[in-house]
């Protein structure tokens, strides 16, 4: 009888352990803050601006997803004190963003690889995804620039890339 009770408790404990979230929230928040710092540190001069708080979620069976909104080149908003944006400013902002977009892609791949190494709880065949929404003022010319970049890859691929066993170019990248 006692042996049955002990076995029952063991089964329940295993079931509860399996039902518990694989990703601790504290770890996710730590990674979110790390992403914010990494994005801000890409460019020392006129750094990119992370807007809002990076968000993350773990989707059971899919993997971990990180999202943030980024302004690649901060510029002045239209205000009563700055009612008109000159064409030179529009062009300068567009040129800076076009120049930085490739550097952003490279940085996002590096971040994915680094983040994957921190996500021990995520199974290796699940995905690690990073989504960056790019911010544009209404007055901006964002011709040739994406609104959103989504990169994702299986954790094992990212870990392999970390050790040099795979190319970062294998990371799937979608732009919208």
């Amino acid at each position, binding site marked *: 009888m006692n042996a049955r009770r002990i076995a029952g408790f063991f089964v329940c404990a295993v079931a509860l352990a399996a039902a518990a979230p694989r990703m601790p929230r504290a770890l996710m928040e730590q990674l979110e803050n790390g992403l914010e710092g990494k994005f801000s540190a890409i460019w020392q001069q006129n750094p990119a601006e992370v807007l*809002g*708080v990076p968000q993350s979620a773990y989707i059971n069976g899919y993997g971990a997803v990180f999202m943030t909104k980024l302004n690649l080149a901060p510029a002045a908003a239209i205000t009563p004190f700055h009612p008109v944006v000159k064409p030179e400013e529009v062009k300068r902002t567009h040129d800076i963003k076009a120049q930085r977009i490739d550097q952003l892609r490279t940085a996002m791949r590096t971040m994915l690889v680094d983040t994957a190494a921190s996500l021990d709880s995520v199974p290796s065949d699940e995905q690690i995804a990073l989504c960056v929404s790019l911010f544009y003022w209404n007055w901006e010319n964002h011709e040739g620039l994406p609104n959103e970049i989504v990169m994702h890859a299986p954790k094992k691929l990212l870990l392999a890339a970390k050790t040099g066993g795979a190319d970062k170019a294998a990371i799937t990248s979608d732009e919208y």
Partner: protein
Amino acid sequence: MSCSSVDLKAYLLGELPAADRVPVEKHVNSCAGCREELERLELTRSALASLGDEEPPQRIAFVSDKVFEPRWWQTVWQSGPAMGFASAALLAAAILVHAYARPAAAPVDTAQIERRIQSEVDAKLNAAVTRAVAAAEQHQNERVAQAVATAEQRFDQQYQRDLSDARQAVMYYQDRMARLTVASNNAARSNQ
């Protein structure tokens, strides 16, 4: 007694003696012709009695007297050529009189005509100006309405753009504020 022996005139004038009157009366009563003759005589006498007394002319003239010689105008009247000449002269005189005595044309009141023409011109000019002004006002009103509509549309578009810019700026600063808040919380948590 026969009709020829009866003196009806003497009987009528009362010139017969009374003895002679009786046989005349008997004959007249028996003779219709004499009775009718007597009635005619009686009628004549009554007519003569009604006439007034006339004075006999005191001067008696003869046909050969100068009094009966025709006057000059009678001579002319009775002369064909003279009458023709007189008629022609009269006609010529009438023509001359008509020519010179023709009533003068009524003086033309040019001032009144000018005033009338001026008033008509003014009336037409006023009507034309009124029509032109009305048309111009209508055209101007249409242009103003169109301009107002265009301005309103432009203003509305600008308002929508401004609203969108303002909304975007608010969201932008809200994002920055959220980030700062989280950073502040994290700093406070690490200090504890």
